[in-house]
């Protein structure tokens, strides 16, 4: 049971990590906490659903197109809703993300409000039984994709000039534009990337969670808990945080009480904020006075 719970926790945690990764990438690039990221997750899944069931595309082209659509949606949000706010306080920007989150959810409800829709699995292989421990190809795919993207983003932010420019642009947008960096284009692109990443998570997870307009709301809380535990703005921290929450949820549900599974994320947020506000991998900010 222990090994099975750990494996299941890794699979669940990978979902949280993948969502947290998109939020962290955007946070690092723009310093905006995006409360609408759950709707990128939901949007990706629903766009794919439309591609398959309405347009009639096969899964893979449909998924690629859904990611492109969501990338454009992300860029549009930055151009139409975020950029006009200029250097507004963080709380105002966060409220804007809350607003478009509810707007997107409302639009989805208008079309699919009464339905909980199924999504075909990416692979339909039967579960693999290794000495009594069950592994599914869908779980392996999600975990693999999470690892792939964390490595990709790590290389981008830490090892490429573009990544260093990205960090400079987020730390000092005015300075960055003075040295010729197109900060607006960069921010728009990062919103697109975040939305695309949210869409990838939604596409991978929808066969497991089923599709409904509110599917992004709960996952957002888990992703916040992962970011808080790992340290806000730390890519590796978001992934480790997500995996830890997934594993601890499963172990607490399996050995203590199933009632703990759903409140675990909130307990983590409270405990981390009280004991180590910077999270596991965050750097404590100090201000000289």
């Amino acid at each position: 049971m222990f090994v099975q719970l750990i494996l299941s926790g890794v699979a669940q945690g990978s979902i949280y990590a993948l969502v947290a990764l998109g939020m962290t990438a955007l946070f690092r690039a723009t310093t905006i906490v995006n409360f609408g990221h759950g709707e990128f997750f939901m949007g990706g899944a629903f766009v794919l659903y439309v591609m398959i069931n309405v347009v009639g595309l096969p899964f893979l082209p449909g998924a690629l197109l859904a990611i492109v659509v969501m990338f454009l949606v992300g860029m549009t949000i930055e151009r139409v809703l975020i950029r006009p706010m200029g250097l507004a306080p963080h709380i105002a920007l966060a409220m804007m993300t809350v607003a478009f989150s509810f707007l997107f959810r409302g639009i989805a409800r208008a079309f699919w409000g009464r339905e909980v829709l199924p999504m075909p699995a990416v692979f339909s292989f039967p579960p693999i039984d290794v000495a009594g421990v069950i592994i599914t190809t869908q779980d392996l795919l999600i975990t693999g994709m999470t690892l792939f993207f964390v490595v990709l983003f790590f290389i981008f932010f830490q090892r490429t000039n573009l990544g260093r420019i990205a960090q400079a642009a987020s730390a000092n947008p005015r300075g960055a534009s003075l040295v010729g960096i197109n900060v607006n284009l960069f921010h728009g692109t990062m919103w697109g990337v975040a939305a695309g990443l949210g869409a990838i998570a939604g596409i991978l997870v929808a066969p497991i969670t089923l599709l409904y307009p509110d599917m992004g709301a709960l996952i957002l809380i888990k992703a916040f808990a992962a970011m808080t535990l790992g340290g806000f703005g730390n890519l590796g921290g978001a992934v480790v945080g997500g995996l830890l929450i997934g594993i601890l949820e499963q172990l607490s549900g399996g050995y203590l009480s199933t009632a703990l599974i759903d409140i675990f994320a909130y307990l983590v947020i409270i405990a981390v904020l009280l004991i180590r506000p910077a999270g596991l991998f965050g750097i404590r900010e100090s201000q000289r006075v």
Partner: protein
Amino acid sequence: MFKTKYLACMLGLGAMLAGPAFAQAPGVTDDSIKIGIFGPMTGSAALFGKAVFGVEAVYKDVNDHGGINGRKIDIVREDTGCDPTRGTAAVKKLISQSQVFAINGGLCSGVVMAVKEEVAKAGVPFVIIGAASSAISDPMMPNLFHPVATTSNVAKTMIDFAMTREGTKKIAVVSHSDDWGKSNRDPAVDHLKEAYGLDPVLDLTMERGSSDATPQILKIRNADADFVVLMMYPAEVAIFLRDAYKYGLKVPVLAPQSISLKDTRERVGNDAAVENLYVFYPYAHPTDSPEMEKWGKLINKYYPDERVESFSYLGMSGALAVVEALKAAGPDLTRQKFMDALNDLRDFDSGISSAPITFTPEDHAGIKGGAMATLDDGKVTVMKKWQDK
């Protein structure tokens, strides 16, 4: 003398003009009866809102056949989103602003419980569409009628069904921890104890929005349960069954009337994963039978784009009972006459519900009894006991 005659004429004229307004109940005119309908048309429980279209189809069909005692039914619909606060606002609006004659609404027990007091105060006849909590009609409220299999009735049927299999001793229960989950779980656990002297071998929770049931499945597998009773919403039941199949758990799973067999199979995407699923079946016939299909066609006549499924029929029996009582109340319609007619309803067989509707002045829980159903070679099979399989 002239003055007296003049006064008499004026009074007579006044009475003629004002008469109908005084004589008729709120929401009733010479040619219409205003009925308020509310349900979750949006939000995470909007699936239950499908029942609203079934109810409205019944009323629209009545209108197309000439109405009731010369009056057409005027429908006013409000959306509650399954939220008690929104539900209270919606019901206040129906009573005060729309001034409906009666209300036929409520699919979320939490919402109905929240609005009960408001409706009791207003004295508006209130017929439930599909909310099943036993607390809705017990204790009885004189103007509230509950033509739905209550959670007590459903739980009793589920537990009794499990116990018809010889040797059943270990029943595991998995439920949501919200009000809805409790209102379904508690009567099942109570009935198991009272009728059979047993406690659940496991009493677990799985919250709404969960995307994984691994800990629950592994615990049930280790406990070697004979049956699993799921008191959960459709999405979580599908996730539970998918994970049960994944981990090779082959225990019969019982679920309440909120679960549609065919929809669950579609959501799980695997016939084998639902072959051990048995649901409380609120209808007299399988949903794909000719007897039920005619009601589905009626819904699609008025709502061509609506996908008819199990929930769609949930409130139609109640709506037909409302029509029956409106007819019986006669042309001089008042709320009291309508409620008296409902109280006189005995063994009203709509052809839809698994059991006939009976209301008495002392008992407004109108449906007693029910059955279970499972998929047998892809077809819905209704059964009363385990041996019927």
